[in-house]
């Protein structure tokens, strides 16, 4: 193997093993920052030794062994240093550092370290953006620069965010464990939230000019699938995976040849990825079986996405089922935006008059006051009812509210059309 080939292979293997390596080391050292450093030291050692010795049969074990010895060496040095202080007569009893139990750690594979790492990186003691950054770093193996570019933030800012996150975790003495019992629900929700935020960051990158951002969808899917394999009895985990698979199935249909966004009902369904749809429907089925009579929000959103995925053409969409699902979703996660989406579905299932009634009922909602889709939807329904002047006014109101240039252009176009029709 040539020098550069060997390096590429070693780095590839290391990248494959890094999350589990860090996860195991974090259990040993009780510090994710230290764990990451040790993992990097193991990489350096591998780059030195493997070109000559070849890649070991069990690279994970080799890397872990090296990292653990480094950890033990460092701990021993620390103890020696303190013993020297001892000789000067200091009482160090309560300052003795925790000596990692190498023997215990070598044999002890209690539970899933990777799962522990995921829960730790997503701990609610950290602000949301820190959880995202730490997850992408420790579990995704993205560099600080890549994470910074993914979230449109300067690199030094992101570096600081990650450093602070690690510090917060160690200062808060967050226990390195998979939460259980009453705690599990909320902690799992935090993990799922992080994964879905990563997915949406990638999903909303419509132009794909920078490959890091669409790559986030793949990363989120991978994390979701890893989670599903390790927490197979959790319906919302499968629900989230189903939702992401189904949404990702539409990625190639969402953007036109000029980079302009294409609405779901207008998309060319031949461009929808059938493999991902199959996977999404399978995950949904599993989630539904596990959830029984108590569907959670991700499962419900996945079921909604599935209604579209199953429709071979836009006309075949089962709007009645979509309305029914939204009715449940509104109960499970009450929100004016969900109500608005339900109103749209009602208009498709029962006609624009019925939908409009629901939209008018939302007129006073403070949360929707600056939401451009409220007048936007209203305008669309009024247009369908032939009330052109009112429709034009609604679209003009939407134009005033929307931040996005393309959406503004779309609304403007419709306003002009309705003005003309109203004459």
């Amino acid at each position, binding site marked *: 193997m040539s020098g550069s080939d060997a390096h590429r292979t070693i780095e590839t293997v290391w990248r494959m093993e890094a999350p589990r390596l860090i996860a195991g080391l974090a259990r040993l050292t009780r510090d994710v920052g230290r764990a990451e450093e040790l993992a990097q030291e193991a990489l350096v050692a591998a780059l030195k030794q493997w070109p000559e010795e070849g890649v070991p*049969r069990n690279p994970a074990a080799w890397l872990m062994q090296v990292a653990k010895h480094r950890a033990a060496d460092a701990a021993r040095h620390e103890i020696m240093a303190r013993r020297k202080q001892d000789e000067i007569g200091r009482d160090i009893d309560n300052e003795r550092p925790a000596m990692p139990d190498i023997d215990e750690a070598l044999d002890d594979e209690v539970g899933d370290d990777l799962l522990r790492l995921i829960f730790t990186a997503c701990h609610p003691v950290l602000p949301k953006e820190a959880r995202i950054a730490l997850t992408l770093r420790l579990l995704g193996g993205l560099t600080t620069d890549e994470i910074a570019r993914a979230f449109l933030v300067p690199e030094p800012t992101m570096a600081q965010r990650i450093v602070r996150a690690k510090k917060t975790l160690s200062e808060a003495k967050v226990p390195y464990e998979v939460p259980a019992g009453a705690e599990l629900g909320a902690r799992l929700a935090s993990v799922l939230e992080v994964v879905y935020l990563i997915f949406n960051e990638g999903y909303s990158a419509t132009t794909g000019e920078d490959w890091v951002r669409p790559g986030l969808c793949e990363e989120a899917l991978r994390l979701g*699938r890893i989670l*599903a*394999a390790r927490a197979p009895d959790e319906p919302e985990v499968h629900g989230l995976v189903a939702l992401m698979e189904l949404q990702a199935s539409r990625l190639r249909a969402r953007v036109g040849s000029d980079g302009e966004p294409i609405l779901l009902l207008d998309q*060319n*369904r*031949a461009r*929808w*990825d*059938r*493999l991902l749809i*199959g*996977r999404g*429907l*399978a*995950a949904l*089925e*599993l989630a539904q079986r596990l959830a029984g009579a108590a569907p959670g929000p991700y499962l419900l959103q996945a079921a909604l996405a599935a209604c579209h995925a199953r429709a*071979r*053409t836009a006309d075949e969409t089962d709007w009645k089922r979509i309305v029914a699902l939204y009715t449940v979703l509104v109960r499970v996660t009450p929100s004016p935006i969900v109500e608005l989406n339900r109103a749209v579905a009602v208009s498709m299932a029962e006609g624009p008059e019925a939908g409009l009634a629901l939209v008018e009922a939302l007129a006073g909602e403070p949360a929707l006051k600056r939401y451009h889709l409220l007048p936007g939807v209203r305008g669309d329904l009024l247009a369908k009812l032939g009330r052109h002047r009112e429709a034009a006014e609604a679209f003009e109101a939407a134009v005033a509210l929307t931040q996005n240039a393309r959406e503004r252009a779309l609304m403007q176009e419709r306003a002009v059309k309705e003005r003309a029709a109203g004459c």
Partner: protein
Amino acid sequence: MRFMVMVKATQDSEAGAPPTQELLDAMMAYNEELVKAGIMKGGDGLQPSSKGARVQFDGTKRSVVDGPFAETKELVAGYWLWECASLDEAIAWVKRCPNPMPGPSEIEIRPLFELADFGEIVTPETAAQWDRLKAEAGGQG
């Protein structure tokens, strides 16, 4: 019944020659028909073998050989996964396919294994593994 439908490579596909707009349009229309018929379960184009590699297994040894590979007409250039009522239905659909290549070409149809086909070698453990695999990756059990 599920099938893999493979488009074999040609010198054109191996050379990375892009398809004509005409062929692209025809293929798009064909794919739409497959989707509307509900038989389309997946499909991809494979990059030329110059972008690929082969791994040889010999005991514990692994050797990697980079592409391109010579036996063009045996290489796969693209595939679909279909779910049809029968092999005859799959054949009928292949007949309707526009020629996927500029010159003469070949499409191969192969039925996929289901768990029942493995018969006696299946243990409760491997059956559970299979179920998990299918729950994960979709497709029938």
